[in-house]
């Protein structure tokens, strides 16, 4: 279970006007602005839920994911993931979660994917029997086959994303964080990724938290959405609650963004 209570996070951003003289001035005296990324964020997510975490760019989605996955420490507030505080028990915590960043790869560029997987086996100290079982299952579900023997640099984006998903699941995490997993993918790859995530949730009961700008992802994968804007939770509910009679999901969300002026 994931509990977030009154989580706040601000960043200091150095600002200056354009130009060389301004650059020189800021070298000696730098001006900072404080930007609020999260403003008293509260939510609870139960085991086995699939949650779509949506909001416009800069709303605080990634910051939330980074706090939940132990990367960032919030300024204040309480966060418990299965009873652990991510930034305090980092190592115990991250052994139980999987994270996929759609924009970044975790595979080694120049070696076959299987080599990257074996490194992960050692990083997570996965017992050999479990490793083999998981690898076999993921290979079948994501049709990895020959991809495992290919260097990551020669994979297409769609192929690579399937490998990224597998890489994040080798250690059987209880919770999977997906940060824009379908970004840039073609229609076939998107559908493959979505179907896989749904299946994973059904067969293993893995809790899935997904951020995306693709509303079809939300429709296909999640039962619940949390809308965040300007660092505040604006809406938390079922997909059907927000949809008004037969409208397509993109329009619904656009109307939502407009109504909250975010």
């Amino acid at each position: 279970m994931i509990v977030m209570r009154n989580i706040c996070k601000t960043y200091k951003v150095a600002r200056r006007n354009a130009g060389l003289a301004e650059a020189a001035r800021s070298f000696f005296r730098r001006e900072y602005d404080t930007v609020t990324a999260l403003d008293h964020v509260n939510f609870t997510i139960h085991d086995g839920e699939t949650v779509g975490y949506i909001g416009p760019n800069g709303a605080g989605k990634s910051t939330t994911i980074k706090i939940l996955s132990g990367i960032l420490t919030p300024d204040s507030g309480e966060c418990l993931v299965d009873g652990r505080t991510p930034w305090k028990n980092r190592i115990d915590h991250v052994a139980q979660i999987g994270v996929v960043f759609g924009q970044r790869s975790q595979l080694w560029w120049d070696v076959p994917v299987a080599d990257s997987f074996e490194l992960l086996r050692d990083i997570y100290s996965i017992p050999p029997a479990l490793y083999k079982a998981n690898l076999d299952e993921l290979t079948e579900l994501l049709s990895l086959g020959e991809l495992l023997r290919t260097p990551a640099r020669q994979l297409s984006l769609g192929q690579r994303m399937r490998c990224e998903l597998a890489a994040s699941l080798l250690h059987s995490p209880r919770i999977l964080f997906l940060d824009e997993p379908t970004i840039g993918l073609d229609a076939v790859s998107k559908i493959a990724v979505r179907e896989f995530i749904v299946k994973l949730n059904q067969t293993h009961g893995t809790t899935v938290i997904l951020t995306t700008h693709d509303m079809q992802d939300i429709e296909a994968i999640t039962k619940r959405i949390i809308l965040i804007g300007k660092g505040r939770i604006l809406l938390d509910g079922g997909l059907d609650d927000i949809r008004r009679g037969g409208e397509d999901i993109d329009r619904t969300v656009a109307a939502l963004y407009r109504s909250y002026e975010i």
Partner: protein
Amino acid sequence: MTAKNNDRNISELRLYVHYVSLHLRSVMQYKASFWMTVVGQFLVTFNMFLGVYFLFDRFGSVEGFTYQEVLLCFSLMLTEYSLGECIARGFDSFDSMVRQGEFDRVLTRPRSDILQVLGSKIELTRVGRLLQAGVMFVYGVTRSGVTWNAWRVITVLLMLLGGTALFCGIFLLFASICFYTLEGLEFMNILTDGAREYGKYPVSIYGRRMMQFCTFVIPYALVQYYPLLVLLGRTDRNWYGLLPLGGLLFLLPCGALWKLGVRHYQSAGS
């Protein structure tokens, strides 16, 4: 408790070996480039030696140190630097790791962050420099004219250990600063590349202020100048041979600063 710690250390060591093996597999993809860089590193380092050689060819001695003595000092420093660079290269390019968000990934893995950063970049081409350092070391030691005894051998080993630790510490210091700013990191090169360049000669030739800085701030003189006096028989204080251990102690404040930095870490972008 100790058994458990032992298990963990073995597992960390195995993971490090795994990283080395992956880097090896990676560079083997680009064989020609690998060998050219190795040879390049070898030659560049040889160049440094030529600089020392021609200087002495002309002036005979510097501040009372002969060519043979400086050669010993130079070869020891070069070996320490090369070893430090081989081990801690990941810290040296840590700013790009932060910039590209790679450090986020490190934090989502159930392993020591330091170990993962070390493993992220192991420059096997530095073998060229290490090889050159080895050649210089043998040459420096044989030409030095030092009358070896057990204590002096121990002193040399401590110098290698302390010096390598010191360079690792400087790289770690550099990486820790990346948590606070990604701008103007160039000044840190004074400590890394600078130490390599100026460390060719015993620190004392740079004057008293420099000596104080290198004793109390960045304890470079502890691994270089003082134990060198023991080797060359220029002091009765044999305990100077123990001073290189200060290089190991230097790792403590650097490690503390790193820990503080990790807590201060603000991940980049989305």
